[in-house]
Structures are given as C-alpha cells and as structure tokens.
C-alpha cells in the first residue's frame, strides 16, 4: 500500500497527459486513506475518501478537462538543470528525514496504543476545539464565496 501511495504520487507529477496525472493524484489520496485505515483511524480514512476523492479529485478532474490543452502533452519538459535541482532537493529532504527517523527509536513503537473512536473525536471537536470549528466554517464559506466571485467578475469583464 505504501508502494501504491508513493508510486501514484510520482505518476501524478510525471504523467505526460495531465488527466492521468489527476487520476494518479486520486490514487495517491486513496493510498493515504488506506494507510489511515491501517493506522486504526477509520473515521479519518472515510473522511479522506469522501472529501478528497469525492470532492477535490473530481473538482480537479473537471478543471483539468476544462483548461487542458493539446500542447501540454508534447510540451518541452523543464530544463534538465531544473529537473536535476528538483530531484536533488527532493532526495536530499527524503534522505535527511529518513536518516533522522532511523536515528531515533521510532521503529520501536510497533503496536497501536490508541483506541480513540469517533465519539472521542466528536467530543473534542465540539467542546475544546469548537472555536476552531467555527473559524473553519467561516474560512470554508469565505473560500466558496471567493471562488464564486473570481469566476463572476471575469464573466462581467467578458461581456464588456
């Protein structure tokens, strides 16, 4: 499952056709959701599937189909220097983080100690973190209004 997750993430960025890239991204998100299941967090996993694969991936797929151009498929890739720099940076980060993890005793934690159910999550959200929840609702509403405004202003410009 980890291979699927990481491989789909690479496909998402490296597929020549960007539609396949979007599908790869959905695969990677699904892989992360299965990792959540393995980590004994089914509520978050279902939430991830519903929000990411059900909403975000479909939204991305529609946008990709809306703005896709044929020339992207045969477009010249980034210069080799940029690609090399990106690969070196990414690998350096992975190497540094992995070495840091392996240097600690994190691999000794092998059993899931936690049995928080969605009741505990709900209690935490609705009591201790309720201001966070309200601010989050405000942010979501603002984001939706902002997205709608962006498209609307553009349409008025078109008609002038």
């Amino acid at each position, binding site marked *: 499952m980890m291979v699927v997750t990481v491989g789909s993430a690479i496909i998402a960025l490296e597929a020549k056709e960007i539609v396949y890239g*979007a599908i790869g991204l959905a695969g990677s*998100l699904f892989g992360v959701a299965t990792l*959540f299941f393995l980590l004994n967090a089914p509520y978050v996993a279902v939430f991830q599937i519903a929000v990411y694969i059900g909403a975000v991936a479909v939204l991305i797929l529609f946008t990709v189909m809306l703005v896709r*151009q044929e020339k992207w498929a045969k477009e010249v890739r980034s210069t080799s220097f940029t690609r090399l720099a990106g*690969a070196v940076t*990414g690998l350096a980060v992975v190497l540094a*983080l992995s070495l840091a993890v392996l240097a600690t005793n994190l691999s000794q934690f092998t059993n899931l100690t936690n049995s928080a159910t969605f009741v505990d999550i709900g209690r935490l959200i609705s009591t201790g973190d309720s201001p966070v929840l309200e601010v989050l609702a405000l942010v979501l509403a603002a984001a939706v209004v902002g997205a709608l405004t962006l498209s609307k202003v553009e349409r008025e410009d078109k008609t002038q």
Partner: protein
Amino acid sequence: MNSLADFVIVSAMLFGIGIYGLVTKRNALRLLFAVEIMINAANLNFIAFGQYLPFATGAQASAPNALGQTFVLFSIALAAAEAAVILAIVVVAYRLHHDVDVSELKSLEG
C-alpha cells in the same frame, strides 16, 4: 510495515516528491498536485504519531488521544477550501491568458 518509523518514512517520501514537483513543474495544476501531496504527507504524520504514541502523562493520561485525528479532520477541510480557491484562480488565469504556465503569468508580478 508495522512500526511508526515506516509510516513516517512514507510521509517523508511523499513530502520529498511534493518538493520535487514544486521545484520542477511550471504548470499551475501540477503545482496544485504537489501541494496536495505535501498536505497528505503532513496528515499522515499527524495520524501516525497520534495513533502510536500514548497521551502525554498527566491528568488525561488514561483518555484516548483523539488530537491527531481531530487536527487531520481540520486540515482536510482547509485543504479542500484551498483547492477550491486555487482551481478558481486557475480557471480565471486560463480565461485571461489561455495558459496556466506560472512562468507566463507576468501580470501577477507586482
């Protein structure tokens, strides 16, 4: 793939892939993909640590630790809002420039 270190390393790999995408890609949609992958890496880290490590010692030591999962729920909702706004910006940029190459969007420069 049972220990905490395995999940953290997978998270680090996803984060590295995201950094690679952010550095090399010039297509706004690919940049969005890379950001989403990095957000997922962070979420995976939250869940892994929250599920493997017990609650800090103290009065709540016996209570189940739902903090990691709660943070990830908030993070997923925020990421969805962010994706919606970015996609709206991409669509507007496409209508204005007929391209979503970020190096071509000169009008966004200050």
